[in-house]
């Protein structure tokens, strides 16, 4: 089981939860488990081609999955997946 950190802009879609537990052997599966449990998050995270939207950064613990194996990056029990969109508020 991994912990997914939900950014403020997606919390409405997770019923206000800042963290969601999700099962999966890799980052893609964990995020799919999240979208299965909270379907409104899907359109924000994934494009029509099934890839992550370019404007969404995803980290496994403290590392950007773009420099790991992307959605195929293996996830272990207790890992944290951070979803991070850019923010512009000043």
């Amino acid at each position, binding site marked *: 089981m991994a912990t997914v*950190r939900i*950014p*403020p*802009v*997606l919390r409405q879609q997770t019923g206000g939860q*800042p963290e969601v537990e999700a099962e999966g052997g890799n980052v893609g599966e964990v995020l799919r488990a999240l979208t299965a449990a909270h379907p409104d998050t899907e359109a*924000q995270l994934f494009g029509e081609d099934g890839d992550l939207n*370019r*404007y*969404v*950064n995803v*980290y496994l613990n*403290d*590392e*950007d999955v773009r*420099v790991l194996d992307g959605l195929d990056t293996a996830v272990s029990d207790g890992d944290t997946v*951070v979803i*991070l*969109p*850019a*923010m*512009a*508020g*000043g």
Partner: protein
Amino acid sequence: MAPTDVKQQVEEIEPFEAAQEIEGDDVALIDTREPHEYQEAHLENGKLVPPGLLADEIGEAAPDKSARTILYCRSGNRSYKAAEQLQALGYEDVASMAGGILAWQEQGLPVVAASGMTPEQRDRYSRHTLLPEVGVDGQLKLLDAKVLLLGAGGLGAPTALYLAAAGIGTLGLVDDDVVDASNLQRQVIHNTERIGEPKTSSARVTIEALNPDVNVVEHNLRLDAGNILELIEPYDVIVDGADNFPTRYLLNDASVRLRKPVVSASILSFDGQISTFVPFEGPCYRCLYPTPPPAELAPSCSANGVLGVMAGTMGTLQANEVIKLVLGVGEPLIGRLLLYEALGTRFTELKVRRDPECPICGENVPEVPESEMGKFPDYEAFCAG
């Protein structure tokens, strides 16, 4: 034999005599004043031994009791008393300089002065100069630094206040907005009386009241592709507290071209992010965020709300980054993104890598010719997409 309870007269010498003597070897020159006086100005090779520490420290400063030992203070009184003490301690050849360093300077003799700072500045910044990481040299760097703040709003307000208090010599403020009542929940540099005034001039009033050393430069305008290079060129460090994506991407691209470091933070509701982008040394904003999010994923503080204190937390973190960059100390947030979540009071650090494919600072980006320097894509359209 002279009775031992009669004090031996202390020899007093004139500054010009002292000047001749201390040119020779084997003369110990002792400054019997307080540290702050010494720091302001002292004689070359003068060793500081404050009056209260004379008995404890003289042995180290002047180990040879038979050697010529000349003492001075500000006007000659404290050094005279100290000379009496030294004679009582067994020093055999002691003299006090009459008139002290004041008389010395009146005669045009040279001193080692803490250059560049006035007595008022030495007092004002004393808590900085006490820090080995800052010191007088570091404070002079701060006083010489030119920092541009993008936005005199939520993030800009606390950043500007602390940078002004720290003695950043020139603070440029870019903002084309006026103070609104709804700003005052977080924009602590403005106040109720100044509602309706331009934010840049309101901020100037507060900064100048806080620290007259700061030269405030108002840029009461909106940043665009046509003015950005000219605007940021004179500054050493840029602080990004902009409230919109077009400005953030434009600033990034221009700052990479001019190789200006940018301290970038953003806030929304209870969340904040901060990183420091030093072109070609670490990643840039586009390495972190290749494309801006669509509007529904990028609400503004005015639409979504923001806890006022978030501006203070993230703004003061920005000020800290700026000061480290100016001083060249510590570890700035280069290649690191710090997230702060205020409801859980939790800080998270993420790694940010340079993207070899980055269209702005990547490996394959061609040199930008001088004629193209000021040309940027249409950011409004780019970010509206």
